[in-house]
């Protein structure tokens, strides 16, 4: 079992998706829902074995599998996880369960297709984090776009078609340049193995060109300023579940890509261009936060807040210290919980009122006190309140930035003000005050199903905020190894 655990976690949800899809019409929707819950839960529980069986003392790949796939190009079905990818896999399987539960009653049309799309995506996303072969990675990375494209396009809002095509083409363009980079690396090194690329010597010009090819893929995915414009559109139009997965996991793939490819394969170019990436990250942190401040639409506001938070992640990565990278990783996981939770909160309101405009709300606390309490926690966590997971990552990154350049830290630190400003101001306008209108007066508080989703996420946010050690422990050895790779020269 241990030898095939990763394959099981990848393929079980995909098999589940096929089964769910075969239930067919909406008359059998209850069966489709139950099946998807069973498969997502089973996948999540199995993925926990990745944690319990994980050896924290080594930076080597664990749970590896390697089978020859296409001999003419020496493409292998090569899987394995280290401390960087393992937590992200568990985040993926955890959030898929949440998304399935969250879509339980909301999705009444083509339920089977909806649930199947998320299960397909789960398998493919785990595959992205577990692949150690560049082509296998690429297959999962691009394959994931198809279910997301369909999710936004079918169950999205009014402008969904524009949003989903923009999303697809934007990411496809970036990724294809990465594919060219992979083939170039293969041409030079005669292997698609990512681990062998890590130690393959490359000249500075090669590194620079490859860096931009990778950058085009990862920066679009993260997304970094100025290629972030697809995200607000995609988020606003996506159904709640789609937004949750998009913000909580897909964005993390860009960050993961930097750690798995750019930093170790192209260390010299990464250091050379670190300032470039850091400046873009700081622009995201400061400028995008200001943009978030003026948003009228709750989903758009959270989308911009995601971009700002991901700026922290890339800032932490390109400082090249253990602290910075760990901070960035913790920030990725924490942001997965928090942004997911906030999108669920907006989803809860949207299902009742069919509006995402901040000004249609006001005084929601009077009718939905339990919901207001949950949202308070997530809003505070988004603003980086100590004791919540949002604080840990931001604190580590700012600390690491301080050691390099005080101005990085000062500019990054503004997020504590701006983040609090836009999140809490939105919270105040939506939740507090007089009851705004008759529709708000008629609201009912969250159901048990919704409480379960938000409760699980709230627990994770608090656990990670109060006792982050288990998360830091698993990634430590791998991050240290990565830092030695990223600071060594390949010239």
């Amino acid at each position, binding site marked *: 079992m241990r030898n095939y655990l990763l394959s099981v976690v990848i393929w079980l949800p995909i098999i589940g998706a096929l089964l769910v899809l075969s239930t067919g019409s909406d008359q059998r929707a209850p069966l489709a829902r139950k099946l998807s819950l069973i498969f997502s839960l089973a996948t999540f529980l199995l993925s926990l074995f990745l944690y319990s069986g994980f050896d924290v003392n080594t930076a080597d790949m664990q749970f590896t599998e390697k089978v020859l796939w*296409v001999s003419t190009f020496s493409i292998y079905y090569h899987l394995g996880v280290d401390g960087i990818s393992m937590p992200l896999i568990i985040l993926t399987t955890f959030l898929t369960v949440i998304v399935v539960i969250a879509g339980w009653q909301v999705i009444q049309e083509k339920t089977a297709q909806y649930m199947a799309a998320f299960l397909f995506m789960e398998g493919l996303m785990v595959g992205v984090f577990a692949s150690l072969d560049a082509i296998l990675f690429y297959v999962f990375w691009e394959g994931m776009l198809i279910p997301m494209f369909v999710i936004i396009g079918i169950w999205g809002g009014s402008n969904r078609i524009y949003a989903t095509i923009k999303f697809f083409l934007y990411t496809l363009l970036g990724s*294809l340049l990465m594919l060219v980079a992979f083939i170039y690396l293969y041409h030079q090194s005669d292997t698609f193995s990512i681990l062998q690329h890590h130690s393959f010597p490359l000249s500075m010009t090669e590194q620079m060109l490859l860096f931009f090819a990778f950058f085009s893929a990862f920066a679009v995915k993260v997304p970094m300023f100025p290629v972030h414009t697809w995200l607000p559109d995609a988020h606003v139009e996506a159904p709640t579940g789609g937004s949750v997965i998009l913000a909580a996991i897909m964005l993390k793939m860009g960050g993961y890509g930097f750690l798995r490819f750019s930093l170790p394969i192209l260390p010299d170019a990464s250091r050379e261009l670190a300032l470039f990436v850091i400046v873009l990250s700081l622009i995201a942190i400061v400028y995008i936060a200001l943009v978030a401040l003026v948003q009228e639409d709750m989903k758009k506001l959270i989308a911009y807040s995601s971009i700002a938070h991901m700026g922290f992640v890339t800032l932490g990565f390109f400082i090249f210290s253990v602290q910075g990278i760990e901070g960035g990783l913790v920030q990725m996981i924490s942001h997965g919980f928090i942004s997911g939770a906030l999108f669920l909160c907006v989803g809860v309101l949207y299902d009742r009122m069919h509006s995402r405009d901040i000004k249609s709300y006001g005084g929601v606390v009077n009718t939905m006190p339990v919901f207001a309490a949950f949202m308070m926690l997530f809003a505070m966590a988004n603003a980086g309140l100590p004791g919540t997971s949002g604080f840990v990552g931001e604190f580590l990154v700012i600390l690491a930035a301080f050691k390099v350049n005080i101005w990085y830290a000062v500019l990054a630190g503004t997020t504590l003000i701006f983040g609090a400003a836009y999140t809490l101001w939105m919270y105040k306008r939506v939740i507090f005050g007089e009851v705004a209108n008759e529709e708000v007066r008629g609201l009912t508080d969250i159901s048990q199903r919704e409480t379960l989703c938000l409760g699980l996420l709230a627990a994770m946010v608090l656990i990670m905020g109060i006792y982050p050690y288990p998360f830091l422990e698993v990634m430590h050895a791998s991050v240290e190894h990565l830092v030695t790779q990223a600071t060594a020269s390949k010239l």
Partner: protein
Amino acid sequence: MEFNIQPILPEAFITLMACLVLMVDVYVRQGRSICYLLTIIALLGGAYLCWYDLATESITVLNGMFIDDIFSDILKIVICVLALLVFVYSREYSKFRELFQGEYFALGLFAVVGMMVMTSANHFLVLYLGLELLSLCLYTMVAFQRDSVLATEAAMKYFVLGALGSAMLLYGMSIIYGLTGSLDIETVRISVAAQASPDNLALILGLVFILVSLAFKIGAVPFHMWVPDVYHGAPTSSTLFISTAPKLAGFAIIVRLLVGGLEDLHFMWRDMVVILAVLSISIGNLIAIAQTNFKRMLAYSAISHMGFMLLGVLAGTENGYSAALFYSLVYVFMGLGGFGIIVLLSRAGYEADELEDLRGLNKTNPWYALLILLLMFSMAGVPPTIGFFAKLSVIQAIIDVDMTWLAVVAVLFAVVGAFYYLRVVKLVYFDSSPDEVRIIEAPADMRFFLSVNALAMVLLLPLMGPIQELCTQAIASVVNAF
């Protein structure tokens, strides 16, 4: 010299069966179903004979005019299978349009023989004969709907331009003959190798004419004008035929002529093919965006796919040729599925060839919608479909010969291409259907084969290794024969 009949047995069998079909059509009343059955048997038998006799080494017969190697055997099997599927897919469609006739099957079988001769040609004249046999059958198949103005116009256009292309081929061959004194591809190869130099203008002239005619036959820009009109105007069953197997035969003569005969001129034809490939990929993909007719869109998509295939050819390495072969094999099955869907959706007196006809298909027929989704993503080259691996192998081949810029150009236009494939998915999945609910009825065998055809886009992934190896072997059998 001992006469060995074994290598030409498949061609001989199908030719005899075609004659039999003609006889049955004339003498048996209501013999059309028998004709259909005989056609199926002929194609199955042809494929089986090629399979049974799968060459381990190259054999030449008929005074070295006809060559039987792994390359030709594999292509012949695929050509027979493709033609078989074409007839199965279009059975109902043809019945409604009075195309279900003995002549139609006989023409199809003769076309198959022509293609098989092309793949096995080891002599300029044999190659030309095969090509003409194929072309004449295709012209007639396009014009088969006598009362359709569109089809007649398409056939005229096809005939005139096809004749022009053939003439250029003949002219190019005659120049090469003048220089080498032989029509035999092997002799030509040796003689050309001795006089290959950038200053040999006559040789360049011959090469240009041959290349232009090849570009005509596979429909590469700027010799593509006939493709959209013919694909659009012809009855869809004929389009289905034209867009699949002949592409493989076209690829075969490219390999026989450029790789087999004129490989020593690679330094000359490489740049010419670069121009053809870049233009085909860019113009094919750009113009496809503006199409509202599904058949025309697929026609332009075919042009761009031929451009991608040429990328592998121009690399000029064994690796590149086998990538091009793989690309062609993948493409013909994608094209077969794509036009197969149009045939499937068409009813009596109603052609479902406008993109609008696909609107909201997911509501009424989720299974067919899924098949279209798979085919479109495969054509766009998005993993995890097999179309991605086709693009991967050709791009890998050109990066191998240090033409990374070309790879970047190809990749950028692949994104442009993705747009119109996505638009089809959008129409099928995201748009609401028109008021009337269309229940699509199709015979079970067609449903089955079309489903397998589309699902193969993902189900073949685990078999990628063996398929690629087969392509490498096939190309090796051509390249190493010398």
